[in-house]
C-alpha cells in the first residue's frame, strides 16, 4: 500500500499542479502573475530556471476556480469577487468560503451560514454549491495516483535521477531494485521497502537484470 500524501507536506512543481487541477501551465503562470493563485515557493535557480512549488491548499484553490469556470463564471469576475472578500479580511476566500452559483451569479457562504453575492440573498435559490471536501479528496487522490499505464513500465525523465531509467510515474531507479534482487531479497521484501511499486515493476526489473 503506497504511503499516503500528507496535506501539510505537499509541494509540487507547476507541471504537476497543472495535471492535478487540469489547468494549463500557461494559465497557472498567468494566475500567478495576476495574484490569483500564488505558489508557496517561487525561486530563481539560475537563468531560465524558475522553481514554483504549490502547496495542497493552492491546488484546492485552482480546482475551485476551475469548478466556478465550469459553471459559467468568468475569471475576471472570480478575481473581482475574491479580491472583494480579501479586502473584507478573508485571507483565502476560495478556501474559507463555500461557493455557489445560481443563474450566472456567484455566491459565497460565510462561516455563520449567511450568503453574499450577486443578488439579494432572499432573491436567490442557490442550487449548485461547490463541494470543497470533495475537491480536497480528489486532489489528494490525484497526488497519490500512479496511472495504471505507468505500472510495469520504465522511463527516463530529464532532470530526474540524472535521466537514469526509473519506474514510470515514480523517481525510483530500476537499478536500485536490481541491487535488492542481486542480494536475493524477495519480492515481498522489496515491495515493503518501496510501497509505491508493484509486483509488475519488480518483475520488470528482474527481467531486465536477466536479459
Amino acid at each position, binding site marked *: 500500500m503506497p504511503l499516503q*500524501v500528507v496535506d501539510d507536506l505537499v*509541494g*509540487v512543481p507547476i507541471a504537476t499542479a497543472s495535471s492535478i487541477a487540469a489547468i494549463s501551465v500557461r494559465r497557472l503562470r498567468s494566475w500567478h502573475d495576476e495574484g490569483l493563485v500564488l505558489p508557496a515557493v517561487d*525561486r530563481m535557480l539560475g537563468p531560465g530556471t524558475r522553481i514554483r512549488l504549490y502547496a495542497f491548499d493552492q491546488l484546492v484553490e485552482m480546482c475551485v476556480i476551475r469548478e466556478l469556470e465550469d459553471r459559467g463564471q468568468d475569471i475576471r469576475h472570480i478575481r473581482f469577487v475574491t479580491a472583494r472578500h480579501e479586502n473584507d479580511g478573508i485571507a483565502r476566500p476560495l478556501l474559507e468560503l463555500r461557493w455557489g452559483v445560481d443563474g450566472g451569479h456567484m455566491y459565497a457562504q460565510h462561516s455563520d451560514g449567511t450568503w453574499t453575492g450577486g443578488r439579494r440573498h432572499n432573491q436567490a435559490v442557490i442550487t449548485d454549491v461547490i463541494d470543497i471536501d470533495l475537491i480536497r479528496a480528489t486532489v489528494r487522490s490525484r497526488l497519490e495516483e500512479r496511472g495504471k499505464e505507468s505500472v510495469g513500465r520504465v522511463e527516463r525523465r530529464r*532532470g530526474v535521477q540524472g535521466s537514469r531509467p526509473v519506474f514510470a510515474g515514480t523517481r525510483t531507479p530500476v537499478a536500485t531494485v536490481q541491487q535488492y534482487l542481486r542480494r536475493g531479497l524477495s519480492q515481498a521484501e522489496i515491495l515493503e521497502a518501496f510501497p509505491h511499486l508493484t509486483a509488475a515493476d519488480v518483475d520488470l526489473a528482474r527481467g531486465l537484470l536477466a536479459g
Partner: protein
Amino acid sequence: MLESWGHTAWTANQAGNALAADNDQSVYAATRGAALITQDQELAAQRKRRTIDQTVLLRCEAPDVIEVLELHLANVVDILEHRPHVVIEVTRDRVRDFCAPWPG
C-alpha cells in the same frame, strides 16, 4: 530509522512530488528547512556546484543505505546543525562535506 532516532522524515511520495525534477526537490527541501537524502550522484554533483540546501548523498548500494546512514548519523547531524548549505557524502568508511564557493 531516522524517526527512531527522533528525527522527522518523509518521502517524496508523501509530499506528492515523486514526479518533480531534482532541482524542485532541492528547493522544496531548502524551503522546508529539511535535508535531502539521496543516492543520486548527479544531483549531489549539481549541488556541489551550487549549494542551495543540505544534501546528504549516500554512496553505497541501496540495500545498505539504512545501515550506512545509521553508522554515521551523529556526524551527519552535527554537520547539518552547523552548515546551512552543504553537501555531505557518506560512504561506509567516511563522511565528507562540501560547500560551493558561492552558496545560494
